[in-house]
């Protein structure tokens, strides 16, 4: 029998990108743009990607190592303020097991030379899947990918 528990945690990551809030927001609000940076394991194939970017809309995708554990991401967009804020809730499954439910807030602030992005994740990590440091690290990798993407676009 599964031992049930819930561990609650919050982490915040900040980045400054050399692009306008509208450009950085577009990297979150557009399916192709987001696919290019958002995943911590770019070598993992992504399938079943649904991306309906509006309040009440959902995002769904399945990824993971070929032939290995399926990582299933399911999100609902709750609050969208163009170029300023996105709030969404998401859960993660490893195969059939729900490992976490999270609330994520992404804020975009205009600063000299670009955009300060503040990501806040508030999560409930379930039934022993409490690798919160791993979640934060994976999120950082995604935001670093976004930084590379923004710099490349600027150079192009």
């Amino acid at each position, binding site marked *: 029998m599964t031992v049930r528990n819930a561990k*609650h945690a919050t982490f915040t990551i900040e980045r400054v990108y050399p692009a306008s809030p509208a450009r950085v927001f577009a990297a979150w609000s557009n399916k192709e743009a987001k696919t290019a940076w958002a995943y911590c394991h770019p070598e993992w194939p992504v399938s079943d990607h649904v991306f309906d970017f509006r309040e009440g809309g959902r995002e769904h995708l399945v990824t993971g190592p070929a032939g290995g554990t399926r990582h299933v991401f399911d999100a609902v967009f709750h609050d969208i303020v163009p170029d300023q804020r996105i709030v969404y*809730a998401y859960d993660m499954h490893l195969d059939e097991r729900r490992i976490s439910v999270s609330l994520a*807030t992404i804020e975009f602030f205009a600063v000299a030379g670009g955009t300060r992005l503040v990501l806040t994740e508030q999560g409930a990590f379930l039934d022993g899947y409490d690798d919160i440091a791993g979640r934060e690290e994976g999120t950082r990798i995604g935001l670093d990918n976004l930084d590379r993407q923004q710099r490349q676009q600027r150079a192009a």
Partner: protein
Amino acid sequence: MTERSTKHATFAIERTFAAPPSRVFAAYADVKSKARWFGGPEDWGKSNLKLDFKVGGRESESGGPPGGPVHYYNAIYQDIVPDERIVLTYEMHLDKTRISVSLGTTEFKPAGAGTRLVYTEQAVFLDGHDDAGGREQGFGGLFDQLARFLEMQ
């Protein structure tokens, strides 16, 4: 133009009820039972709770003081473990304004013949509306109503 801001907060409330976990859980899972305790003060009028208690299911309720703003509660169930745990996300609106988005975890643990309930809310309060203190106080009132409901059963 609305000045945008966010305030993130987490609070936890623990209560012990004389009823076993299965009964306390049922007070959440059954719409008729939940409507008896999950609502505003009496002068807000009769409950209009709608509840589809399953993972992915939705819940809604609205109400408010006579002549005052209407409070809208809209939830989505994220995780349900019978008699043990409920995880949901919910939004609150005051009239047309979204004031918060929350992740709520309710855990039901046996405590002698009764139940120790732990409710943890992780919330983002939007654009200066509401705050964790007011929300925590609101849930304190709901748990008082839940205790009375369980005693009357």
